[in-house]
């Protein structure tokens, strides 16, 4: 996340206020730099301006044993991380939503999609894998 000039100015002013008499241009600079850096690395669930490396997997179909196993196996083979998972059975239907992190995966989204398409074909279920940005843009301002 990027800080605006205004926000940095505010941080600087509060640093000067806290330091009181001890404030020198040099130590204010160090403190502000640290504050800005720590802000940059602070984890945030939803960042608007940057593209995340995550994708959302949605899967549904007639329930049968081994669906979750097959999907997670395919994902782990692509070295993707599962960030979150939610699964529900509605009557005969199986539904699953998963947030998958592809940042450290050697495969790109397309390759993972192709792998999952094979699983979907085998199990006769639907699997969609879409980049997280779509959901972020549609549902978060």
């Amino acid at each position: 996340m990027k800080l605006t000039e205004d926000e940095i100015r505010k941080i600087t002013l509060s640093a000067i206020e806290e330091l009181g008499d001890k404030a020198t241009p040099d130590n204010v600079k160090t403190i502000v730099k640290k504050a800005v850096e720590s802000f940059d690395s602070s984890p945030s669930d939803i960042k608007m301006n940057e593209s995340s490396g995550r994708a959302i997997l949605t899967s549904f179909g007639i329930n049968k044993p081994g669906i979750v196993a097959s999907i997670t196996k395919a994902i782990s083979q692509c070295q993707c991380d599962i960030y979150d998972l939610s699964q529900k059975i509605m009557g005969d239907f199986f539904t699953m939503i998963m947030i998958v992190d592809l940042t450290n995966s050697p495969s790109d989204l397309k390759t993972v999609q192709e792998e999952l398409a094979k699983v979907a074909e085998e199990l006769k279920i639907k699997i969609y894998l879409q980049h997280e940005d779509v959901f972020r843009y549609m549902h978060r301002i």
Partner: protein
Amino acid sequence: MPYEFDEILETIRMTEVEHFDIRTVTLGISLRDCHDRNIEVTKQKIYDKIMKYGKNHVKYAREIEAKYGISIANKRISITPVSIPFDPFHAEEFIEIAKILDKAAEEIGIDYLAGYSALVQKGMTNGERELIQSIPYALASTKRVCSSVNIASTKAGINMDAILMMAEAIKKTAELTKDRDSIGCAKLVVFANAVEDNPFVAGAFHGVSEPEVTLNVGISGPGVVLDAIKEAGYCDTQGLAEVIKKTIFKITRAGELIGRKVAEKHGVPFGIVDVSLAPTPAEGDSIADILMAMGLEDVGGPGTTAALAMLNDSVKKAGLMASGVVGGMSGAFIPVSEDMGMIRAVENGNLTIEKLEAMTAVCSVGLDMIAVPGDTTASTIAGIIADEAAIGVINDKTTAVRIIPAYGKKEGESVDYGGLLGKAPIMSVKRISCEKFIGRGGRIPAPMRSLTN
């Protein structure tokens, strides 16, 4: 989870079930540096320039489609209105240019390239006159080139001479393409207050104030709005406007994301998002169905204009909030042949040209994809264009006419193009003559509205 279950399902439903798609990503390319005294050199320059920027257009769009799971229905290209950089040429040379444009479009793998255009709202240069005369032959000898001519604006008034020339060009185009149901006319638009960054073909062109190259996006999704209205059940009109706004807001956000990503891939500046509900002949992808879901028995009856006005306005407002760069067209398109519900209403006798004309005063464009009997005279067509231009000029909005005087056909028959262009039943036109009025020529002065400074 950072997203609710419902939010995720809503996106999946929109993209997978309700046909929400990005209707078009249109790459605008300036051809202003492509002129040469030698037509062969000019043609080479045009071809090279379009290929330089456009050769990866389809590939990039496909990559983004796969990444985000949102389909991009059409990939297109718009160019500087051809009459501007190539003003010194004559009709035969303009036709040569159309052919090279067609070739470039084919090579890139796109279905339409638009911008065989002229802007003549106040008057015509020699080149513009030549271009208009060449339009029927250019459209008849190419498959992918689309043409548009702007004949009126709020600031300049209505160029009646140009309207008559265009009416004759439309008639000639219908005749030259008679073996394919006069399909040439489906690629020819007559505008008032044309928008310079419109991504929607056939009326797209890359305006003179546009940069070297830019990417504009057109979003659609009548199916999404239709389902949202159905789901909302009974609520008052204010509530209904809210439902439409919320839905459009979401699809505009997605559209802007896709547009920016395609532009990023090209390394070109992102232009605008045009949020227009544009129907397709697919079932459920119809503006008429939306109006009926709002409570009309059929399109064309009393109440239609009001319902359409509300729909159009809600679309604009939502687009405005969702994107920082909303295009000038945004609203609802009402092409007859491309909308199953409209076709049905015409066949039932519920929708007439006169009611459509009233609807165009509140929709985003105008009389679109309307087939009329082949023996409709040029002056009657000119009258229809002038009426439509008057609505645009007085209300300071874009209006357009894309009319097909189906050669050799009469009322009750239809023209069928298949694909996106669909099927148009031939509508009846009043036979009362306006020949003497149109024959006066000249220019209807700019209205009161133009004196804003």
